[in-house]
């Protein structure tokens, strides 16, 4: 069989009989891979890799330097904040999702509510912080309204700028996110399961205890994990609300990046970033496992 040179476009990728030939199809993927490499993988490597680099080469000193109380406190606060807003957001979001799922699947209400959830889940950051300031900030609408009725919600301190305030504000985007994540699972519950349960003698309690509960559990806890990761990574909302200090990990990283202390110790910001990435990655892996279970049962 003659081996004529064939036009690239025609035969790219087709190996000759009896031999190997470098497939030029791979060229098609290069732009994407290169782009992602430069703007995602490289920055991540820089950010995280810097934790092992010291003034004199490779070192673990950056990691050990993290054993300071303010650093540990920041991470602890982040965990507490994320867990609290995740649990609250998951529970409340599940209830709201259930109310949506039991309505007309093509109705206007559902469209509006899911669109609203889509916006609000993204709604963090500055806009959200300002919204809450406008509502229950010191000059906020609700604050003033309550003051006129003799109730001072800040009698024991201004909690809005502290952890408890952040939990409240975070639930504003955690609940919609839970709705978006949990709704498909609810839609996957088939009416035949309820009817089968009834025909076999089970009532509402039995249905939730033995059928719907176990089926929705992975989706519920998966959603909670996702909410945790979401809150843990969040920066903008806290930055807009809290102008000074680094009470949570993301604020700490930002301040380390921009402060004089941080510039003197570039490795520190990287070490902090490494810890954050590891925590979020672990949570996301667990989330993916639970998602697998959900899709097997409910799709």
């Amino acid at each position, binding site marked *: 069989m003659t081996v004529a040179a064939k036009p690239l476009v025609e035969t790219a*990728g087709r190996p000759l009989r009896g031999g190997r030939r470098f497939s030029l199809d791979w060229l*098609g*993927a290069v732009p*994407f891979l290169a782009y992602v490499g*430069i*703007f*995602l993988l490289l*920055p*991540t490597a820089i*950010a*995280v890799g810097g934790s092992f680099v010291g003034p004199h080469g490779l070192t673990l000193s950056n990691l050990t330097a993290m054993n300071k109380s303010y650093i540990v406190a920041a991470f602890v606060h982040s965990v507490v904040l994320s867990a609290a807003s995740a649990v609250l957001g998951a529970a409340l979001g599940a*209830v709201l999702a*259930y*109310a949506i799922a*039991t309505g007309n*699947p*093509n109705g206007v209400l559902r469209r509006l509510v*899911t*669109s*609203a959830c*889509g*916006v609000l*889940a*993204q*709604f*963090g*950051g*500055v*806009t959200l912080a*300002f*919204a809450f300031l*406008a*509502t229950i900030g010191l000059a*906020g*609408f609700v604050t003033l309204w309550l003051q006129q009725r003799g109730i001072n919600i800040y009698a024991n301190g201004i909690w809005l700028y502290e952890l408890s305030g952040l939990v409240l504000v975070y639930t504003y985007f955690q609940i919609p996110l839970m709705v*978006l*994540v949990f709704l*498909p699972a609810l*839609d996957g519950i088939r*009416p035949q399961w309820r009817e089968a349960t009834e025909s076999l003698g089970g009532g509402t309690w039995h249905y939730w205890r033995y059928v719907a509960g176990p089926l929705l559990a992975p989706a519920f806890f998966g959603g909670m994990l*996702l909410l945790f*990761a*979401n809150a*843990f*990574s*969040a*920066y*903008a909302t806290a*930055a*807009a609300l809290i102008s000074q200090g680094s009470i949570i990990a*993301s604020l700490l990283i930002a301040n380390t*990046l*921009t402060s004089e202390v941080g510039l003197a110790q570039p490795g520190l910001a990287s070490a902090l*970033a490494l810890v*954050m*990435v590891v925590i*979020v*990655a672990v949570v996301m892996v667990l989330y993916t496992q639970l*998602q697998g279970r959900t899709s097997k049962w409910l*799709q």
Partner: protein
Amino acid sequence: MSRDRRLKLQVFRVVVFLVFGAFFLVPIGAMFEFSTRGSTDNAPRTLAAWQTIFQTPDLVAAILASLALAVITSVGMLLLLVPTMIWVRLRLPRLNRVVEFLCLLPLTIPAIVLVAGLAPEYRWLSINVSESIFTLAFVYLVLVLPYTYRTLHTGLAAIDVKTLSEAARSLGAGWPVVMGRIIVPNMWSALLNACLLSVAVVLGEFTIANLLNYENLQVAIYLVGKANGGVSIAVAVASLMFAFILLVILSFFGRPRSRVARQPDELAGFGRQLGGGLR
């Protein structure tokens, strides 16, 4: 379902929607209220804050910059992702998992971490390429990957790309024709969805712009907010409404679903992939 149970369910739904509706609408209402306050306690409501938006050059510049960034990011995303995804689907199926992983990776890497590593790159960029805020588009494209990948993937899966392209090729079409005139026209709704999502993400981005010292919409709101609360809140509300309208439009391009639908709901699919980075 028995009538009794149906009634209880309806009551439950009404209560839930009222309570949650209040929780979510009150802050937005408060924003409207705040942005229309008069200059003293008893002054009448005014739209002065809203009008000031157009008189604040920084704000206007930031709005335009963000809108431009949104467009650039959407276009760039389409140019990069669509051909790649089609090509991988048809010719490099083994790369599918890799592409999917890479597209979902931004969810696991908090924006705050990404920015730590981007600083040196952007220093280089601002010296050697451009100082313009539009260089943010490079990183925004990466940020929107998770959401847009899901949407485009669903769109591609819904049309049998393999069969269509084989049919076109057998009739003599070259690859550009196959992509441009056969596949893309069948993916209009997915493409539109992906663009709308990108716009929503770009308009809401704060972290990276702030820490790289660029003044996009959210950063501008933040900075103006320190001086003049009313104006910044007015802009914030406007951007919120804009994003909401976009997503409502998006919902009309989804497929009608039955209660036991098998296809992933586009919006919910996007929600499922949501992670950190923008808050």
